[in-house]
């Protein structure tokens, strides 16, 4: 599927900022399931935009601009060609051995309730793969996925107790359970193309990947109750949201920040039929 993504991140400052630094993990890489045909990041303010890579192999852009800046808009435009590999992630860049993703972080810490839940729902399943599928469905059934608009993540345990959460926390719940069961799990941030068959998506999304011995890394999207298909564009990975966050920034001055994010990911018109 050919997916056109346009993502605008706009900031307005009541009091102009003197200096702005932004760390953007907003550039996807190629792997067997996706091919980046074009990708641009364009801030509307003069500044320095430098590309580098982080420890996970994500492409990271650092943006520095000196003020006074009263509004900043970063625009991302891209075109991606994807293939449905039923969740399998092959041919990607693996900087870190998979064992590293056993590690718990603040956002994926488990409590008693989570551990019991994980043991309970996977008790009947035989192989690790069917365990993960059972877990994905159970997490999807139990947790209500809500729109992110303005909400921030609270971490796996708190989200689990609340029974409703934004997509990133649902991924954290799943990762916390998988790590409790002894499997390496990681966080994926990305985009999901608008599709009638997917309840949650249409823009920025987050899901999780688990490493299974026989298969390698496999994605699990609990909010949509499926393994990522060709609607999913994988952008950045990490131990949790904080590691793979699309945007992190700091500024001097610029009180009264107002954030406006618009994302659209949809099937491109005039796409090529596969033969």
């Amino acid at each position: 599927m050919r997916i056109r993504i346009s993502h605008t991140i706009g900031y307005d400052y009541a009091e102009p900022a003197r200096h702005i630094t932004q760390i953007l993990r907003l550039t996807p890489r190629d792997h067997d399931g996706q091919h980046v045909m074009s990708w641009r990041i364009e801030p509307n303010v003069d500044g320095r935009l430098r590309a580098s890579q982080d420890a996970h192999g994500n492409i990271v852009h650092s943006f520095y601009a000196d003020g006074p800046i009263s509004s900043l808009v970063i625009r991302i435009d891209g075109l991606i060609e994807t293939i449905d590999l039923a969740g399998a992630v092959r041919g990607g860049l693996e900087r870190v051995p998979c064992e590293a993703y056993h590690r718990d972080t603040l956002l994926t810490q488990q409590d008693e309730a989570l551990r019991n839940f994980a043991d309970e729902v996977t008790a009947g399943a035989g192989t690790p793969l069917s365990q993960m599928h059972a877990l994905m469905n159970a997490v999807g059934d139990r947790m209500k996925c809500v729109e992110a608009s303005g909400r921030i993540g609270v971490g796996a345990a708190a989200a689990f107790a609340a029974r409703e959460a934004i997509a990133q926390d649902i991924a954290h719940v799943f990762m916390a359970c998988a790590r409790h069961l002894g499997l390496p799990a990681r966080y994926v941030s990305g985009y999901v193309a608008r599709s009638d068959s997917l309840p949650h998506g249409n823009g920025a999304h987050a899901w999780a990947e688990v490493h299974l011995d026989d298969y390698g890394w496999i994605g699990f999207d609990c909010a949509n109750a499926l393994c990522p298909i060709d609607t999913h564009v994988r952008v950045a990975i990490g131990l949790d949201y904080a590691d793979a966050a699309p945007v992190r920034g700091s500024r001097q001055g610029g009180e009264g920040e107002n954030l406006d994010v618009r994302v659209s990911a949809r099937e491109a018109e005039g796409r090529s039929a596969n033969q």
Partner: protein
Amino acid sequence: MLSRTADSLYWVSRYVERAEYLARILDATTRLTNLPTTYGGAGTEWQSAVLTAGCEEAFAKAYAEANERNVCDFLTFNPDNPSSIRNCLAQARSNARAVRTALTSEMWDALNGAWLELQRFEKKRMDREEFARFLDWVKNVSLVFDGSAYRTMLRDDGYWFSRLGVYLERADNTARILDVKYHVLLPADEQVGGSLDYFQWTTVLREVSALTAYHWVYREAVKPILVADLLVLNRRMPRSLAACYENISRFLDALGDAYGRQGPAQRQARKTLANLSNTRIDDVFEHGLHEFIEEFITENNRLGNTIFEQYLQ
């Protein structure tokens, strides 16, 4: 566009690129054999030139010994060697004539002029100086042809097919240079990093006109791992495998968009490109440069076949 036309355009560029490559091999090998023997050259330089050109079987049939005279003759004017410089230019020209109207007049003039000029060279008795002039001339033919295509051709499927020929051939050539130099030229008892090594890797860089680029990129002495990094993974280096595949993938995408269909060729090129962009040179050396290159050459040939099946037949 008729697939026959596409096929001819593709092969015209491929043959011109190959002729240039043969000239580069001969030029570099001549340099290498001119080194003082105290550097301990293995004396197999001409043999490895034949290997790099990928025609060892045909050569073994025609000649007993791989020395300067035999190899130069075989790779330049020998009519029995299907990929001698002479035959490459002849094939390029006959393919060009078949699709004369699909070429711009500049491209045709470059090829036709080269063919006439070649016969003058063929009749001459060449000393070393004249031979060096001949090799420079071959490189020039390729530059002129490539430049005319770049400057004058309409950007449509004809141009894209001709570019595919260039980059597939170039990727194959770069891979072969790396493979042969790594194995044949390094005698077993020579320490890696010795003086012989230094000259051989410098020669590799000269073969692809990358010695200056190397110093710009790495700013240190010539080391095998960095030479390989430059020629395999560095996209800024126009002859590197990654740069070739970036272009192949781009032109295949353009074809896919223009025809409204894409198929195995696009997928295969993207896969190789992803693989090249997600690999580090340390990993390549860990698993063996030879294995990596060999696999690459096989994949590259396979892509050539896929393109043939999808578009050219």
